[in-house]
């Protein structure tokens, strides 16, 4: 039973070490580049973390109409992990913590900063954990289908500090997508691999790059993107089918699975 399809209307991508999604897929790195985060100013710019700045960067790049702000789904595997390291040092060394730092330590700091910066009172949520990348897509798609209007999906993760003994990548990555519910229609259907989790940071980087490139590429040139696929990490009760229509962007089709 197919339960609905969503269409990617717009996509944006940012990597601290790549100039484009194509560079990620071609393994072409550049020196570290900080996001420009044009939506942030003054104090907000000073106190926000890299992961928040990257979320703001890719959300801002979608140029969403401020008069009609969408519900927003933020997704992150590691959250404000660099802020967590600083807070640990605060009370370990000084028996106190910085109030400004603590205020922006929660996983939904990026969504809060975004809603304040844009004046949007639309609901936001933050999906996290090892399968946040896939669960974020699912949450955003279901929200779009539930509400019948476009939904903003923003995915970002910053490098995990060494002290945590977590993933070792030094690349910060973010991508944002404006998803809309779309009627079922013809076109080439591409099955998405649904395998385990994508908490591996390098895999996640490539998945996001592939998604952004597929959406941007097909929208720009009308090229047949059917050969591309997107891998989503999700536990196996759900099957997602990618549905790519030339010239019309990328669709993700979610269907009920009976394993």
């Amino acid at each position: 039973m197919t339960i609905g399809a969503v269409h990617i209307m717009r996509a944006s991508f940012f990597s601290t070490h790549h100039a484009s999604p194509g560079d990620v897929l071609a393994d072409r790195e550049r020196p570290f580049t900080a996001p420009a985060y044009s939506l942030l100013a003054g104090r907000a710019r000073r106190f926000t973390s890299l992961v928040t700045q990257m979320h703001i960067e890719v959300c801002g790049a979608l140029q969403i109409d401020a008069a009609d702000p969408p519900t927003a789904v933020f997704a992150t595997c590691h959250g404000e992990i660099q802020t967590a390291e600083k807070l640990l040092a605060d009370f370990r060394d000084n028996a106190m913590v910085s109030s400004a730092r603590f205020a922006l330590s929660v996983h939904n700091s990026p969504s809060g900063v975004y809603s304040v910066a844009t004046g949007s009172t639309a609901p936001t949520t933050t999906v996290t954990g090892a399968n946040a990348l896939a669960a974020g897509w699912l949450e955003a798609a279901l929200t779009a289908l539930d509400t019948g209007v476009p939904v903003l999906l923003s995915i970002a993760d910053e490098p995990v500090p060494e002290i945590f003994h977590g993933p070792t990548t030094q690349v910060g990555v973010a991508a944002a997508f404006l998803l809309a519910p779309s009627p079922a229609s013809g076109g080439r259907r591409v099955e998405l691999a649904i395998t385990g989790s994508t908490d591996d940071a390098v895999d996640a980087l490539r998945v996001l790059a592939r998604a952004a490139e597929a959406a941007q590429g097909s929208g720009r040139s009308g090229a047949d993107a059917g050969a591309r696929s997107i891998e989503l990490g999700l536990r196996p009760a759900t099957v997602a089918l990618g549905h790519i229509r030339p010239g019309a962007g990328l669709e993700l089709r979610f269907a009920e699975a009976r394993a």
Partner: protein
Amino acid sequence: MTAAHAGHAITGVALANCLGVDNGTVFERAFAGVDSFSPGSAYFDFPFETALGILPSLPPAELDAAPTRLAAVALASVRQLRPTVRAAVDRWGGDRVAYVFASSTGGLEHTERALAPHPRLPATAAYRYADHSIDATSAAIAHDLGVTGITMALSTACSSSFKALASAMRLIDRGLADAVVVGSADSLCRTTVFGFHSLGLTAPTATQPFGRDRCGITLGEGSAYIVIEREVDATRRHAIARVAGIGAASDAFHHTSPHPEGLGGQLCMRQALDRAGMTPNEIDLVSAHGTGTKLNDAAEAAALARVFERRVPLTATKSLTGHTLGSAGLTSLVLAVESLRRQEIPATLRATPVDDALGMAVVDKLTPARLQHVLVNAFGFGGSNASVVVSQPRRP
């Protein structure tokens, strides 16, 4: 106006917090109005006065299965739900039962003890980064419960558990699950206590929500779980309540301070009522977010005054449980379900003298009442607000 949802049957609830580690004890002490807070020094030598809601110890046999404090806090509720989840798995199949978990701090307490050890606190035997994550306990709990459907984790500070509930309802509405175990847990940790103190938000003594002399939050630890199922005759027969509607909105004002008029709170309460197909007049009780800070209670009161054109009875359960952060919403919701069952409103402790300037009808003693629908609020950092209408079950 959004179309009303069909509703979702609540077939099981579980709570654990400073009041107790089983439903019976928690409910008995909550409705008796037993003050269960401890001095902050019972947890750590903080260089300031504060009270805390500390979870009583689990039986040693249960604790052996909990590698972290977060796991122990979660397990205290999860163990109570095993029969209900087993029935749901038998009814629908394990792959049709999902697990959606919420927390604000996840395994941060475990990380603190490993990476910022202190002689006052037990040393960690082993540290893995996976134990830090919000979903650190999810795989083990889902396995323990025999749940093999979709697993998700959410974290939106103090509204976390209601955002998880919204996600769970969507999984059922879109046919991706027939039942969902929705849970939340937050353990005490130094980051939280130092952090709220740094913002001037912790009370030196026990919290007094909506009281004239209120001066801040009492932080607590706890877990709250519910099982929601697709409403069909079989689940209606077992239902103890139903989720009638849920709403969410953002303040778009400030990261830690509420909008003065409670804008996001107004919007999410109205949306929850719309989705329940109800008017404010049909709500018999509001279970407030009620943290006990000057600004938070004033903003919530302003929002309630705009939504309700009468002084609706209001209770603030954080006076009993402390502020359990990501678990706050579901904690209040489970107590609301028990209110519906008992037809009683638990007292808001220490609210007297009530702050008359807020214009709220604060229930300050155990009060019998005819209760059909309760609206529960959960508001958090980032201006993240959510409200839920929980109602008496529909019978087949």
